[in-house]
């Protein structure tokens, strides 16, 4: 990784006795689209606000562009933010909103006009320059907030749940636009979201947070294929879990016994309590199912989703598994009756031996 534009060094933030952020280390590279993902209350927004300067860390340092800015007020930081509520000033026209930050920096008036024009063109709002915010749609207001932040040419753009207030269709379109925008201007984006699909779709790298702690930082694919622990596996995509009852260690590897599966050998396993996980699409169904793990289950509900089907499978223990199937296998499942006993199979290497919570 090249020189990090933002580095967060052992940062903790406490509000009274509540620990919002617990000893987090992070580095965000120049030109990167970075997402901070986690359920509400995981500390991601607090972390973002510490980068923006609205909160100061209780411990640790926030470095921006190689300079310690932990105690620098927000108006002196080379970062700008797009707020969840957009916070577009209602008493100013679109143009004035975008010009506001430049005026604050005492940029000469002759320079302000062309820069505002350029910023509005960037977010395709040129024809709305004279409008007041309450004459704009939610999506347009968000573009104003984007233009207003980007016109200042920040080193990092911070986005707090930028898509959460938009309706589903607009959200999908805006995702793509954000990615295009980020690639075209090359500024680092740090986005906070609770929506894993959103993070997977836009980010170059994702940090997963839970209860103030950093669980994993990885590229979207790695996060899905190689989750660091059971929480990440559960939060990113879907997974079926089998808690370990007995673990016999042998060097780095381990033999894991669970309630519902035969004993399985893993060449490597993390410390501590283990749980095994398998993704729904790895589970083979029907007579053609392959792999070392072979069990039987009763067919539950089948949710047909066009090109694929989500299948609920009831284990003899009473627990349900989720499998995703498509093509021939989906057609075979479709022909079975609900309650029919069907064979399942998957490979041990498609399973994850994870640290349990």
């Amino acid at each position, binding site marked *: 990784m090249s020189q990090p534009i933002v580095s967060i060094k052992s940062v903790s933030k406490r509000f009274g006795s509540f620990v919002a952020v617990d000893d987090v280390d992070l580095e965000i590279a120049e030109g990167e689209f970075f997402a901070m993902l986690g359920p509400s209350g995981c500390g991601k927004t607090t972390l973002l606000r510490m980068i923006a300067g609205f909160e100061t860390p209780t411990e640790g340092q926030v470095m921006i562009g190689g300079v310690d800015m932990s105690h620098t007020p927000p108006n002196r930081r080379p970062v700008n933010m797009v707020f969840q509520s957009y916070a577009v*000033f209602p008493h100013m026209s679109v143009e004035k909103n975008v010009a506001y930050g430049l005026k604050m920096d005492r940029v000469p008036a002759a320079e302000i006009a062309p820069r505002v024009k350029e910023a509005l063109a960037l977010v395709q709002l040129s024809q709305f320059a004279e409008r007041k915010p309450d004459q704009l749609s939610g999506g347009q207001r968000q573009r104003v907030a984007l233009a207003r932040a980007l016109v200042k040419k920040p080193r990092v753009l911070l986005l707090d749940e930028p898509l959460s207030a938009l309706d589903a269709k607009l959200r999908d379109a805006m995702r793509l636009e954000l990615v295009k925008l980020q690639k075209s201007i090359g500024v680092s984006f740090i986005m906070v979201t609770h929506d894993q699909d959103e993070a997977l779709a836009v980010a170059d790298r994702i940090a997963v947070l839970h209860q103030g702690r950093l669980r994993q930082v990885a590229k979207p694919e790695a996060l899905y294929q190689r989750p660091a622990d059971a929480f990440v596996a559960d939060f990113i995509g879907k997974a079926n879990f089998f808690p370990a009852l007995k673990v016999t260690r042998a060097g780095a590897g381990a033999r894991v016994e669970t309630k519902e599966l035969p004993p399985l050998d893993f060449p490597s396993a993390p410390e501590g309590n283990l749980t095994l996980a398998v993704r729904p699409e790895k589970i083979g169904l029907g007579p053609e199912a392959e792999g070392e793990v072979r069990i039987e289950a009763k067919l539950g509900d089948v949710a047909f989703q066009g090109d694929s089907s989500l299948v609920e499978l009831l284990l003899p223990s009473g627990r349900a598994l989720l499998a995703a199937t498509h093509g021939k296998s989906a057609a075979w499942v479709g022909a079975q009756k609900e309650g029919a006993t069907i064979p399942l199979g998957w490979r041990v290497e498609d399973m994850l031996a994870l640290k349990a919570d």
Partner: protein
Amino acid sequence: MESWRRSLPAFAAFAGPTTLWLLVFFLIPLGIIWMYSFGENVSLTEIETTWTFENYRRIFEPEIATLFWRTVKLAAITTFFCLVIGYPVALVIATAEQKWKPWLLLLIMLPFWTNLLIRTYAMLNILGTQGRVNGLLEWGWQFLDGGAALVGLDGLFGERFVPVRFLGTELGVVIGLVYVHLPFAILPLYSAMERLDRSYLEASMDLGGGQIRTFFLILVPLTSAGLVTAAIITFIPALGSFLTPDLLGRGQVDMIANVIERQFKKANDWPFGSALSLFLLYVTFIILAIRAIVDMQNAKGRRA
């Protein structure tokens, strides 16, 4: 709600007592006053409504017009100081920690539960020539005078302490009026700030605005509705102040309400008193009407 309006007996049962109360204790007396204002004294106790405009004409005689002007001036100055003092107080309360807010608001409300007369007498004690303020000033003077004597500048601050006269002056009346009306200004300002999305202020800071520019360019414009409400809610009662100018003005700083009182009592000129009262009411109506028109125009502008 819809069905309530359709059921006449139910509607009458709920609206009836209120309507009756308003009619008997508000509209009828107001109507009588209105009739008086077009009347003349025919004997000591009898008033005949002759539909004369004489009472209204007398309002514009220099003596009364001057008093009216002073009333408006003192009410305006009072309003100005209430806003200037009240705004930061409201801001402090609005930004205080959640658990402190009810207590801070209680402190603002507390004087309301003390009789105005008692509070005004307390002000007499504070503002008198032997009062607390002058006591404090005298102590300061002694300190300065002693210091001056030390460096051989005897009498630099005057031969002896001259107390500041508050009672019987416009200054004293304004201080009293500001004290009485401050809560009226603080509460609407507080509610405007409380409703304001904090992220506007954060956005301003994020965009490079310091505290001062964020205050004047974002906070004040976005709470302007609260400022207007606070101004009106302070100005109107200040315009009708009676007790404060009566006690703190010592009869030398009369406002219009003092004149009205005199008409109904000492002067026994009820028709003129009625005309003055109604004129004050009309002024109030005009202020409220202007506000309503401005509001409507703003709403229209937003929709266009």
